[in-house]
């Protein structure tokens, strides 16, 4: 394999970026351009924006994203198993079975702990935190 094998990709990349540049540039050159204050508003229909458009995501999104990434990627092992399904036989099925059971156990735990509840207020009502105050030396 040498670099010439990548020539089609290079041509493709050139064509793609060229197409984008030409169409954007042409429309900029040819299109009429007379802005008015109304046209520059975020909502041209006249709604006054109440807050900054870029908002932080609530932390719940991160929680779901983290859980998704973990459960999603663990499936990688199933691909490796699928490739050699017949050769691995019962040994493979057993191993993957144990693996899946552990994944399910994790899912059950996460679910029961309420990490999948979108409504956090409900979660805290169902799970009162029993916190024993620790007898500690006054700082």
């Amino acid at each position, binding site marked *: *394999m040498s670099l010439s094998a990548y020539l089609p990709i290079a041509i493709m990349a050139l064509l793609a970026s060229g197409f984008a540049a030409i169409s954007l540039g042409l429309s900029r050159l040819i299109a009429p351009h007379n802005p008015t204050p109304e046209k520059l508003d975020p909502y041209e229909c006249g709604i006054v924006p109440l807050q900054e458009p870029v908002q932080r995501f609530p*932390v719940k999104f*991160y929680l779901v*994203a*983290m*859980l998704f*990434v*973990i459960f999603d990627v663990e499936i990688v092992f199933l691909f490796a198993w699928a490739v050699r399904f017949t050769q691995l036989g019962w040994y493979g099925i057993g191993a993957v079975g144990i693996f899946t059971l552990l994944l399910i156990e994790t899912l059950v735990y996460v679910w029961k702990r309420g990490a999948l509840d979108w409504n956090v207020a409900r979660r805290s009502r169902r799970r009162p935190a029993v916190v024993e105050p620790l007898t500690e030396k006054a700082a």
Partner: protein
Amino acid sequence: MIINQFLVLAALLFSIGIYGVLVRRNAVLVLLSIELMLTAVNINLVAFGSYIQDTLRSGQVFALFVITVAAAEVGIGLAIVVLVFRNRASANVDELDLMRW
């Protein structure tokens, strides 16, 4: 098969990752840089595995493990970053200076 291109790509990615870890201030971007380093390792492992024609496919298998472990690491890392952000309303690693010496 020529392996140089893969090695150069991996080395570049790894260096970019290290640069990001050292220079970036936002913890999430540092996290991304670490992921870049792990990806570089994966490229290396798969390229080497194919180059030396390993019949056990250790390189590819290792890459699978690296991918999963990286996912777990990112999960934990994001959780810690969110925790830090909640407590101090900033994910800037330069502000982690409560303890020194």
